[in-house]
């Protein structure tokens, strides 16, 4: 029972890690690729177009 609970808690913590890493990936893509901040938009302009993101 203890082993089962440990494995359950371990798998939960692994799932949380995966979820958080994916969330961080989304955040990076949002800030670098989609944020409408003037400076970010200008700096990333060409890449946004070439990667097919909606740019402006």
């Amino acid at each position, binding site marked *: 029972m203890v082993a089962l609970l440990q494995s359950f808690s371990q798998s939960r913590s692994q799932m949380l890690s995966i979820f958080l890493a994916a969330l961080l990936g989304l955040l990076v893509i949002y800030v670098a690729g989609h944020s409408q901040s003037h400076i970010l938009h200008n700096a990333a302009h*060409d*890449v946004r177009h070439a990667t097919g993101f909606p740019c402006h």
Partner: protein
Amino acid sequence: MFFRILISGLFAGSLGGLMAGLLQWYFVQPVLLHSELYENGILKHFGEFTNSAQQSLDTLQPIRDGLSLLFSMIIYIGYAFLLISAMTLRLQTSGDRITFHQGIVWGIIGYIAVHLAPAISLPPEVPGVAAAEVQPRQIWWFTTVFLTVIGIWLIAFKPKIKYFFIGSALMIAPHIFGAPEPNVFTGPAPTEIGALFASRALGIGLVSWAILGGLSAFFLHKETVRTAS
């Protein structure tokens, strides 16, 4: 686990992004610069105007190109975090490692979800084309990527036939709903440039994602071995 994804993602993403940035600079940037001549009114199209299809372009602009390379690496690091998270999730249930060559296939599937699927209704835009407001397009873009990822995952990893139909429905739904479109066409660039830009962007995206997938699998395995020992 979290840091394993992060570290392998940083390596795979920065290398993959560097490759993508260089390929974009060589193949996509000249088309973009050519289009900007029309966007800025230096060249005019339509009606009585005819222009040479070959223009001399300033393809070496250190600051602009450097920023593009940097942001390409950052965006591909974001892609790598997503791709390696998906790989790790799969490894939780299948338990096997993903080889470099299998990683290339993962990368191509990632490309379909993140690059090709939204482009079916919202093609890569050369500067100066007419488009709807940016925010609804971004919402549509993120929704389409999300639904396509879920759809592909269901079809790939759930053997029951009903998941094939659910997955297909999820992938086609945003295109039936439709992407935001402009009310009028005002783009000043010739259609030839727009078409070349879209196909170059999609082609380079495919190659870059294949590289990213291979590198992601390689670095994930290296990190897994390193942290286990």
